[in-house]
């Protein structure tokens, strides 16, 4: 159990700033998710924390100790790779016990710990098998068992669910969260999947172009995005943005509803010309443009199916947004401005 801190951490690859002066702290026992599009530097950041990549500048502090110049094995961390990186020539048992053997744990202790880790992930039956005889989900469990067996102070997980099929991914997400809660080990988790990030993270750090845009709980990130990038990266469909004299107004598709559905009186009304409808089962997506505005603003409304207001393509309707659901963003910097519009 430990904190992980990066101080002005920077990594350049041939002049490209993959990681650009990142200041970040993972609190004790926290599940921190690094979220961002591919190429945003999240994996590089994690590899530097692991010691697999040497920073160009800055420091990494694990548990109050500067580890920037220490090799991976002296940092007492465990990492799960996207490919799982199981040792193909070793049995599951040897895979799991590898970190213990590497630090010279005695034989009886190894047996006890391997049994404990295998039981935690339900892989006792596979201990004699080789990785290639396992399914994707089983391999992922072996990789996790290998990570926990040494009882490290920090877990680093690099998109460990992305090689699983969609159904398995949901249950694996659940288990991952459970085991992290049980062990209470500080965990840093890299993903580009916002659903994973929202579901797993105690806090989320959104990265773009080597910098952190925002760190916050899933609720904060979603409802009060720090800038336009976060606003449009999180949420599906993304936040609607319309331009006005001061800057940009942003509101979520589900906050943009037909007039009369929303009860309050502090609403802003927009005349909305509908161009296209999509029926998604639980929701309807309504695509269209705001009438009487130049330049033309394309927006999307997400209406729960149980709101049965009649809407047809080609028609024009009054839609409303609660004033408190509107975010304002600065035209130049893209930063969110204080207060609602």
């Amino acid at each position, binding site marked *: 159990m430990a904190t992980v801190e990066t101080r002005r951490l920077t990594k350049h690859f041939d002049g490209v700033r993959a990681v650009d002066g990142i200041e970040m702290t993972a609190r004790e026992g926290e599940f921190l998710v690094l979220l961002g599009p591919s190429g945003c530097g999240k994996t590089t950041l994690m*590899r530097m924390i*692991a*010691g*697999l990549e040497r920073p160009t500048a800055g420091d990494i502090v694990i548990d109050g100790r500067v580890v920037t110049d220490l*090799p*991976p*094995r002296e940092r007492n*961390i*465990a*990492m799960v*790779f*996207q*490919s799982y*990186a*199981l*040792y*193909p*020539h070793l049995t599951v048992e040897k895979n799991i016990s*590898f*970190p213990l*053997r*590497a*630090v010279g744990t005695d034989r009886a202790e190894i047996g006890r710990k391997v049994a404990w880790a295998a039981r935690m992930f339900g892989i006792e039956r596979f201990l004699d098998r*080789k990785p290639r005889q396992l399914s994707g989900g089983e391999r992922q469990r072996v990789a996790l068992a*290998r990570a926990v067996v*040494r009882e490290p102070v920090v877990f*680093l997980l690099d998109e460990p669910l992305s090689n699983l099929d969609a159904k398995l991914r949901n249950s694996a997400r659940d288990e991952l969260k459970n085991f992290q809660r049980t062990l209470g080990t500080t965990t840093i988790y890299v993903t580009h999947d916002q659903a994973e990030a929202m579901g797993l993270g105690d806090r989320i750090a959104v990265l773009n172009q080597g910098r952190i845009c925002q760190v916050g709980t899933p609720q904060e990130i979603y409802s009060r995005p720090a800038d336009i990038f976060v606003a449009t990266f999180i949420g599906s469909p993304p936040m609607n943005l319309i331009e006005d004299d001061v800057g940009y107004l942003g509101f979520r598709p589900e906050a943009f509803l037909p007039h009369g559905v929303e009860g309050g009186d502090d609403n802003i009304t927009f005349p909305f010309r509908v161009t296209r409808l999509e029926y998604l089962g639980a929701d309807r997506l309504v695509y269209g443009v705001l009438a009487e505005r130049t330049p033309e603003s394309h927006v999307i409304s997400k209406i729960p199916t149980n709101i049965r207001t009649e809407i047809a393509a080609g028609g024009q309707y009054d839609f409303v947004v609660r004033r408190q659901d509107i975010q304002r963003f600065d035209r130049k910097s893209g930063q969110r401005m204080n207060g609602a519009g």
Partner: protein
Amino acid sequence: MHRPAPAAATPRQRAGLFGRIADNERWLWRLMLAPAILYIVLLVGFPFLLSLYYSFSDAIVASREMNFVGLENFRRVLDSVTFWVALKNTIFITVVSQVLVLVFANALAMALLVDFPGKWLVRFLILLPWVAPISLGSVGWLWIFDSIYSIINWTMREAHLLGPGQWPIWLGTPELAMASIITVQVWRMLPLATVIILAGLSSIPQDIHDAAAVDGAGFWRHMFQITLPLVMPVALIAVLFGIVFVFTDLIAVFVLTRGGPYDTTQVLASWAYFIGIQGGDLAGGAAVSLFLFPVLVAVAIVFLRMARRAELT
């Protein structure tokens, strides 16, 4: 109006003989395989059957007559002291040179996997012995091991490593001659093995190395428990090639020592050559050379099986 151009005729109509064969799958594969099959039949199969035929006859270079003599040639060969020396030497040279090649090639390949300035030059130099003809290389080594001009001796003398009266005759004393021949074989086989092992090393995913580093493996544990086991199936292929090349090689011995002193460095291939071609005893030479065959087949089968098993597990 848009008119179809005359060239728009379908390709089939325009295809000549070549086009028709290229489209005919029944004949195309035969045509494509024919050169390889002809090559093997004419240059490998036929000579092999011929030497089999000779070995049961009394064929000699000076006569056009040949009689079937049964196993007489093999009895003669097995009765000869030189045969057993040559067999022992062949195996000894092969085993020792391949062990050394395996060790050196692994070390070299690992060094070449890392980036450093001038890497391309080092790679080029390491590959050089492989592209040089064996005979030229051996002649070069003949000078290096020369009894008067040996650059090794002169260098050691200049470095005061050789005292007065000390002057190793590399190719003239049995142990040194054997060491010289093994040196040449290692020098010759090292490039191929290095390249093969290098390919094997670079096929190990970086994630595996990273995982081992995070899991706490130090340099030696990483090398002996992760890298070497993973590269073994590929390294075995390199050794298989090495065994086949060294076991059947006659040039190094022929150029450097001619089997001497007193047959102490004779190998099967060179002895077969001396008997069969230089001695004119075609039947005897054929019989000696046939002793190479079962060993090589056995080695090939064993190694292919081991490589296959290592690949599967």
